[in-house]
């Protein structure tokens, strides 16, 4: 009875209404954050809240004056790039070996980091890094964040390596190529886009990670995310600057996410779903 063309067009309209509603629910908080960051200070805390009248960048310039925002950003860059690089360095050959041998325990082992609460590792790390005087060092931060990036790299690249026809490798072996050479000269160029996705996802999740830097960094090596926690106390009356900081911190991962959105499913479920 409800299969007449008329009711079908109503169903379509109902879908559009729902889609718009979902879009508003999902996007308006972020939009509000960005909007607030461009409001003059008297308007940020105005009640009832106002939509923007005279946009200004005063919050951003105040943020730069109030905090060493730029050096926090450099810290974040060092830790993020370092841990993503380390993840790729260790993860690419490991993923290739797992794909070649079908012996999967090395890949499963790295997943342990994805499962256990970070505090579980943080307690012994803290004791150990303190023992050798490495609290606050970039090395400690890069190593701890590589625990996050390594499983991402391995599990993003596993299906890519699996997809390369075995015959290509066998032909190279007949020609006397070593496995390392096959990886370097043949396999890696073939999974270039997979490596790019792995690198970007590693960057995003390392950039976003809060807990390790909260304990293992100090005033000089604080990442943006860890510093943002302190902004809450300092900036409780300065919402504009707080929202400016939030907007700037969220910008790099959101921009990168837009680039890789097509490959997000397989990348983020660590192989659990074939997207």
């Amino acid at each position: 009875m409800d299969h007449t063309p008329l009711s079908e067009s109503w169903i379509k309209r109902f879908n559009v209404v729902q889609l718009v509603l979902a879009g508003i629910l999902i996007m308006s908080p972020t939009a509000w954050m960005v909007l607030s960051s461009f409001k003059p200070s008297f308007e940020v805390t105005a009640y009832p809240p106002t939509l923007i009248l005279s946009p200004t960048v005063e919050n951003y310039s105040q943020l730069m004056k109030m905090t060493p925002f730029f050096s926090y950003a450099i810290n974040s860059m060092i830790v993020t790039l370092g841990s993503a690089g380390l993840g790729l360095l260790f993860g690419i050959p490991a993923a290739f070996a797992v794909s070649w041998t079908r012996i999967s325990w090395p890949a499963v082992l790295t997943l342990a980091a994805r499962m256990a609460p970070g505090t579980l590792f943080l307690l012994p790390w803290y004791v150990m890094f303190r023992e050798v005087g490495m609290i606050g060092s970039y090395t400690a931060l890069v190593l701890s964040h590589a625990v996050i990036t390594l499983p991402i790299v391995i599990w993003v690249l596993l299906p890519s390596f699996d997809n390369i026809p075995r015959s290509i490798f066998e032909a190279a072996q007949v020609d006397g190529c070593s496995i390392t050479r096959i990886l370097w000269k043949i396999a890696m160029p073939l999974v270039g886009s997979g490596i790019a996705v792995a690198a970007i996802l590693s960057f995003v999740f390392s950039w976003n990670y809060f807990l390790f830097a909260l304990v293992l960094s100090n005033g000089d090596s604080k990442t943006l995310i860890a510093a943002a926690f302190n902004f809450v106390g300092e900036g409780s009356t300065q919402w504009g600057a707080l929202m400016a900081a939030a907007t700037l911190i969220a910008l790099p991962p959101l921009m990168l996410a837009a680039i890789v959105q097509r490959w997000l499913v397989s990348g983020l479920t660590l192989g659990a779903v074939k997207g």
Partner: protein
Amino acid sequence: MVDAANTVTPDRQRVELAALSAPAVLFTLAMIAFPLAYTVWLGFHAFSSTGRQSFTGLGNYSKLIADTEFWHGLWVTLALYLLSLVLQLVLGIWLAMLLFNAKRLPGIVRSLFISPFMMPPVVAGLMWLVILDPSLGAANYILQAAGLPPSDWLASPIWVIPTIALIDTWQWAPYVALIVLGGLQSLPASVYEAAQIDGASAFTTFRRITLPLLLPTIVTAVILRSVDLLRFFDIIYITTQGGPGNASNTLNIYGFRVGFEFFNIGYASALMLTLTVIVFGVVLAFNRLRGAVAW
């Protein structure tokens, strides 16, 4: 595969393959397995305020059983877990169906729909802290404009758990949607055609065909969300730090504070090991379930 024509011997190959995965394995052992063993050891020790340690055997664990804050933390963890999980599944599946039916939606809009979970959770916490401010926030303004009473949100001991669940759902329901969307796109179109020929309504098709076929994908989403939700940290620490009072003091927050604010490393280790056992138990149970609903 490896025939006699090969100039490379299988033995040499095996060594090479082992060498390729060695860095990742050694790194993981050094950063995870060894510290984990150390945590177990720490869990059997007590630390005095001066940092001196002494063996207490199961002392930390009997302390844990008698600790009302532990049981409260377990309750908060489970309440937050179940509430968030249900909200994220329902809204995630809803969003996935919407996006699946909106095939002409441009890629950039699609990525905006799923963008929240790529944002740092700390930023999401900051953002919602401002929106949910009890006296000046936009959320209460909207409530009042709609004729509803304002809420204290994160400052209310009663509402803090639902509010945190709401923030996490805003951030992660799109992630569930992304996973479910992947499952939807891999379903064979033929089953829909058969249902259409049989004259099934849209709702019946969803309930009787789509949902059962999606079950393995949904269980996968449940596993991935369970792992994160049971060790919930970032958003709580940035917004309430376990408060007001101890109303949002999850096990992970409690363990962190015991370890790094009160520096009772031994007891914190016992707490974190207990939480880890809970997480692995839940994951294993759901993994079994996934085997049972696979088709």
